[in-house]
Every structure is written in C-alpha cells, then in structure tokens.
C-alpha cells in the first residue's frame, strides 16, 4: 500500500474506531487519546509489517489496550475504572458507523468555533495535533491545550453519545455544517504562511462534507454545502496568479476551472433544489453553479444570480447578502442602481468600515465612471482588510483608477 493510500485508510477508519471505543467505554476524552495513539502506531508498523487483514479490528484492539494502560496508570482512578476497561474483547467490532454522532459531539454548542474546528479535524478527520496546529499556523502546544480544553468542555456539558433528536438535531446539524464551512474557508482563503497545508484544509472539509452527505443524502443543506465547496474548489487554479495575486471572477481563465468538480457540484445543486425546503448553502451553491455555467464572464446569467440573492435576503437576511445583490443589480440595471442599494447599507453597524462594503462601492464607482471616488474607496478598502493578498489586489485596482491630480 502506498503512503497516501495508507494515510487515507487511517483517516477514514479513525472516526469509526473512535465510535466503537466510545460506545464500549464511554469517556470520549480518554478514548480519543487512545485512538490517536493507535493510529500513530499503525502509521509506524503497517508500512514495515504490512496492513493487517482486519485493519479496523487491529486499531480497535490496540486503542482499547492503550485505554486500559491509561486507566491503569491513573492510580487515583484505578479501582473505579479498571473493572470496566478490563472487559475488552478484541476483534468483536460492531458494524455501525458513528462518524455523524462524533461530528455532533465535536461541534458541541458549548465550544467556540476555533475549538470545534480543531476537535473535528483531530477526532473525525484523523489529523494529528501537529497537523492541525500547522494548518492554523499555531505552535503544537497551543493546539494541544485547545483540543484538551475542548474535550473537557464537552465532558462538562454532559452530552451523551447519541444523535440529538427532533428540532435540536436540525440546530446542531447547522453548527456542524458551519464548522465544515469554516474549515473549507480557512483553506480556501489561505493568504499567508504555507499555502500548501492550508489548501489541504479545503480538501479535508470536502472529504468530511462527503461523509455527512453519505449519511444524510436527503438533507438539502448538506447537499448544498457539499455542492458549494465543490463549485468553489473547482476555481482554485484560476483564482490566483503564479505570483499569488488574486484574480477576480470576471478575469479568471475559465479553461482552468475543474470541469469534473463543476459537473458533480451542479448535479448536487439540481438535486438539492428539487427538495422541499431551501437554505442558504443551497442558494449559494446555486449562485456558484450559475457562474460556473457561463463560458465567459459576459455570458453570466445575472438576472438569475440577482433572483437567487433576493430569495436569500428573504430567508436569511444579512447585510453581506444585500451587498452581493448590489453587484448583481449593477450588472442588470446599471451601476447607479447598485450604488443606490449600497447606500441602504450605510447605516448598518455590522458593515461599518468593512472592507467588502468599501471595495464593492469602489468597484461600482469605477463602473459608473467616477475614478476619483473609486480610487478613494479602493484605498480605504485596502487599509481595512486583514488579508495580504486582498490588500495587494485592492492596491492594484486603486493604481489603475488613480486620478492624475494625485499621480
């Protein structure tokens, strides 16, 4: 087995093995550590000795032993806990996949988003603490403390190892999807540091979204999120130049878009839109599919993009959605119409001084033939962003429209 194939296998088995252990022994915290150790042991042993006939059973056995060792070495708790842990019978592995239950646990509402993403990547994604730390550009010790604190919080919240029921399940699923979305974005908007590792986060988010989709194929928002990720990821090669500069959607070389991902994403969008309820991920995916459908930027179906943003404003009102609708409106009704819609956002505190509001206004002023206004807003937007790549892009747009008087 090649090294990447082995890694894929281990990462796929990690949540399954963890599910088996937690079902047997409870104590998510200790089980999670034991599984991580078992996976590390496998990564060392299997390349040398060959992959065992039943890899999952092997991991369950080794992880269970680690758990017993852990319990035994903990003198204070030995008498209380060794009785349960000693009952491990290797090889008897039930065939249930608890990946989804684990995801709900890792995305527990008692945790901050930063802790949810870290715990999800380790316990469900099967990444090591060092890998998670590298992906988020923090030292391993920082990440180890964060993961350990997150596990304590989950324990203190007293959550059970079952899928939440009814309305709570929908609420919790929304959190899970948001965490996957954040992981994807972290990889997609990589602007500093080792971009290779951060691009891996986008792939990892897609892998996790596929797992959720496989378990809940009928959920429109799950399908929508997976589609949105695929359609966005399809543009990754065209999104930056070789030098790392951002290329806006209308200037991207569409031949570089990944047609296979677009095909898959588009099919998923169609399937999800046929469902009974519409959600924000489905609509964003539908917008991404509309862009993907245009052979050139000039052929974009802007009325459809605008209509989709209108629906989104209705079901999930948010100033960022209105901001995006202003761009679409400017395309169908002219820049002044877009600018008029933007002025409705001026009083909104959530967007005050936000670089997106400034850069969209700059863009529309440029289209409306007001280079001085565009210049000023591009400059202010460049100062407001926390992304180096975006700042470089906005500075270059500013230079393009710079009026003579300030040259």
């Amino acid at each position, binding site marked *: 087995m090649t090294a990447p194939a082995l890694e894929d296998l281990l990462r796929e088995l990690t949540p399954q093995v963890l599910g088996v252990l937690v079902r047997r022994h409870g104590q998510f915290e200790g089980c999670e550590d034991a599984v991580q150790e078992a996976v590390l042991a496998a990564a060392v042993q299997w390349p040398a000795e060959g992959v065992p006939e039943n890899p999952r059973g092997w991991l369950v056995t080794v992880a269970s032993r680690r758990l017993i060792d852990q319990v035994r070495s903990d003198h204070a708790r030995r008498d209380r806990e060794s009785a349960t842990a000693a009952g491990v019978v290797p090889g008897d592995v039930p065939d249930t996949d608890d990946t989804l239950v684990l995801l709900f646990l890792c995305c527990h509402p008692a945790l901050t*988003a*930063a802790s949810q993403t870290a715990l999800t990547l380790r316990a469900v994604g099967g990444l090591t603490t060092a890998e998670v730390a590298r992906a988020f550009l923090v*030292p391993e010790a920082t990440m*180890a*403390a964060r993961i350990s604190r997150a596990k304590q919080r989950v324990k203190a919240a007293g959550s059970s190892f079952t899928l939440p029921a009814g309305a709570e399940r929908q609420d919790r699923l929304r959190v899970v999807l948001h965490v996957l979305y954040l992981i994807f974005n972290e990889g997609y908007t990589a602007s500093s540091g080792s971009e290779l590792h951060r691009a891996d986060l986008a792939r990892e988010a897609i892998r996790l979204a596929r797992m959720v989709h496989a378990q809940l194929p009928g959920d429109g928002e799950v399908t929508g999120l997976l589609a949105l990720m695929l359609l966005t990821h399809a543009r990754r090669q065209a999104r930056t130049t070789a030098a790392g500069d951002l290329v806006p959607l209308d200037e991207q070389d569409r031949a570089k878009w990944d047609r296979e991902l677009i095909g898959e994403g588009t099919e998923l969008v169609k399937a999800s839109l046929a469902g009974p309820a519409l959600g924000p991920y489905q609509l964003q995916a539908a917008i991404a599919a509309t862009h993907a459908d245009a052979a050139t930027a000039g052929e974009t179906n802007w009325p459809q993009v605008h209509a989709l943003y209108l629906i989104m404003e209705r079901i999930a009102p948010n100033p960022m959605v209105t901001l995006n609708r202003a761009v679409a409106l400017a395309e169908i009704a002219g820049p002044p119409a877009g600018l008029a819609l933007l002025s409705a956002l001026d009083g909104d505190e959530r967007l005050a001084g936000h670089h997106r509001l400034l850069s969209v206004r700059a863009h529309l002023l440029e289209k409306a033939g007001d280079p001085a206004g565009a210049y000023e807003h591009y400059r202010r937007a460049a100062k407001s962003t926390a992304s180096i790549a975006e*700042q470089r892009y906005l500075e270059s747009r500013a230079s393009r429209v710079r009026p003579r008087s300030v040259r």
Partner: protein
Amino acid sequence: MQFLISLHINPAVLDALTDEEKAALGGGHGEFIEALRKSGELITTQALVDPSQAAVVSVRNGQPAVTDGPFLEAKEYLGGFYLIDCEDKERAIELAAQIPDAAIEGLGVEVRQVMFAAGQLEA
C-alpha cells in the same frame, strides 16, 4: 485569528508603583499567561529590556551606523507583547482587558490583528 497585544509602558509610571503594586503586576501577568496557555490561545509572549538599552541602526550610503536608542523620544515605550490566537477581535479585547497594565493609568494595552506571518509558526 491571531492578534498582537502590545504593552506600552512608561518607566516613570512603573517606578512610581509601590512594591505591593509591582508584585501584583507581575503576579497578574503570571496568572494571565497560565490562563491563556490552558485555554490554548497563547502563541508566545515576550518582554523587552529597558528602552535605554536599545540600539538604533541605520544605513546611509551603504554604511551602517549605530546610535543609542530609543528611536522615538517618548514617554511610553514598547515593553513587551502577547501573540495570541483566539476566536475573534471581541475575544482579543476581552483578553486584553484582563492584563493588569490595562487597569493602570499611564500604561497602554493595544490590540492589532496579525496580517502576515512567516517563521517557525508556519513550519
């Protein structure tokens, strides 16, 4: 999100503190570091030597010149910093408010988001 919390100290203000106040300041930083470490939000923290020990380096016509610092003639100087990784700017501000310097008139605590990083943290 990563933030730098910079501590702007005023040597005259620090000198005027009583021994108890100085001890409380040091103890407060110790507790803050421990809490940050446990929550998984501390990347690193460093304190700098007195500004009178600074060297200011410039190169003119290709020739380096070194003069005694500090560079800025001011009452306040950069005394140290915390580099943290936390949820959002609100949390960074909440943390900054826990730093003992923030409660002392004449000392400054400033929060700024990190925009670019290179070095060992990205390895």
